[in-house]
């Protein structure tokens, strides 16, 4: 399944600053970018090119690290080094700041919406993961603070179908959380990476989890049921992709439409991996299908698959740019 990544457009999105993250809205028609200039920009396609539709510049006092769209597409959440998470509501042409979630002691590194739309998770350098509930009146309430990590929590991601959360940390571990008696708790700790785990992605069915790390590898984890009826969950590492990345792997994204795995690396490269369909599902095999060695002039921080258009990929870099790519393969 040899593939190729074709560059469609390169945009200088955040002048003189890092572009830390890009996120597609659920409809796949808008791309939100955020960065070191403390702004969020919303991009839409006009004809053949991506143009800036609006700028959200006054929401944060420091770097905006990540943005996340709600499943309905009407809200945008932004996580910032200023220790707050801002919730924005989409109006016809613009976004208005709805509320600011406070509580973390220092930089918020990530925000993620649960597929149900009623829950939000945030994580921080303060080592904690916060779960927030949102009601019909757009009121946000923190329902759990979980302290399972011993260092900064870099990323949180929700399972695509179950109410299950995963977090990645500077302590080299991944934690899995579930709700038990109205309280969220860590049910499993995944150890194996030899350095900071920067990001996570579930596969389309939610049966496997991909993690990427400063140790220059990507690991694939699968839940193994004990078979004795116990509620203890254990996740095993069933595959490690090593030798492909020259430096820290900052992000990993698993395409819902095609199952392709994309990575963002500190060696300026973007890579796409495909799974060997003939391999045993307990011991999956991934091979590199496409690789752009100098996708950007500096570290690639984020990689994001368009949820509606198969093969459309957005990436962004420390040089303030984002790029749109078309991935195609001969399968």
């Amino acid at each position, binding site marked *: 399944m040899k593939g190729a990544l074709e560059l469609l457009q390169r945009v200088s999105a955040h002048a003189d600053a890092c572009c830390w993250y890009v996120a597609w809205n659920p409809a796949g028609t808008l791309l939100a970018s955020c960065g070191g200039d403390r702004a969020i920009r919303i991009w839409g396609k006009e004809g053949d090119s991506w143009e800036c539709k609006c700028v959200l510049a006054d929401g944060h006092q420091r770097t905006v690290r990540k943005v996340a769209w709600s499943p309905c597409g009407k809200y945008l959440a932004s996580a910032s080094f200023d220790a707050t998470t801002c919730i924005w509501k989409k109006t016809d042409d613009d976004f208005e700041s709805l509320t600011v979630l406070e509580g973390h002691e220092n930089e918020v590194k990530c925000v993620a919406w649960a597929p149900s739309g009623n829950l939000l998770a945030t994580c921080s350098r303060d080592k904690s993961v916060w779960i927030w509930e949102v009601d019909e009146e757009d009121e946000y309430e923190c329902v759990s603070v979980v302290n399972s990590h011993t260092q900064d929590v870099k990323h949180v991601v929700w399972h695509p179908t179950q109410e299950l959360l995963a977090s990645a940390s500077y302590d080299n571990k991944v934690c899995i959380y579930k709700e038990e008696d109205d309280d969220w708790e860590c049910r499993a700790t995944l150890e194996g990476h030899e*350095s900071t785990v920067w990001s996570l992605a579930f596969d389309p069915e939610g049966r496997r989890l991909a993690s990427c790390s400063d140790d220059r590898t990507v690991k694939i984890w699968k839940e193994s049921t004990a078979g004795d009826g116990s509620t203890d969950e254990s996740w095993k590492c069933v595959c490690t992709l090593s030798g492909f990345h*020259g430096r820290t792997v900052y992000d990993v994204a698993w395409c819902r439409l095609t199952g392709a795995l994309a990575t963002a690396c500190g060696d300026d490269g973007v890579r796409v991996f495909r799974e060997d369909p003939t391999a045993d599902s307990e011991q999956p095999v991934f091979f590199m299908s496409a690789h752009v060695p100098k996708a950007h002039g500096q570290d690639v921080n984020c990689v994001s698959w368009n949820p509606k258009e198969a093969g459309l990929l957005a990436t962004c870099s*420390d040089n303030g740019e984002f790029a749109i790519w078309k991935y195609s393969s001969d399968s």
Partner: protein
Amino acid sequence: MELVSVLLNRAWRLTGLSDKRSRRMEEKALEVYDVIRTIRDPEKPNTLEELDVVTEKCVEVQELGDDEYLIIIRFSPTVPHCSLATLIGLCLQVKLQRCLPFKHKLEIYITEGTHSTEEDINKQINDKERVAAAMENPNLREMVEQCVTEPDD
């Protein structure tokens, strides 16, 4: 006989190339050293060079290909104080990011055996998210600026 002389010529030429290459790495290392040696120590009124925190030998340069270089710096903080060591690491990051004209990736480490928590310090200094957040802290930023700004800037 002709084949042997062809092989010998090729061997001599290859040696010449690798000499040129290591000379280029040395030149790059000196360029790097020139940028870092004038950084002032956060506590003392001396430069990192004067205090032997950095030396010419502490800079290693490797070719990453296509006019891009990997720079590895191993510095020796004068005191075992953890926060000062991280501050010096931060100064090295910032000054090189700003002043080095050629494309590079950077790794900064404390020299082995100079600190009890060196693994912790090395991890912090090389985490770019931590570095970026630290530089947004006004007090830390001010301290770094004082250490890296050249007198005639």
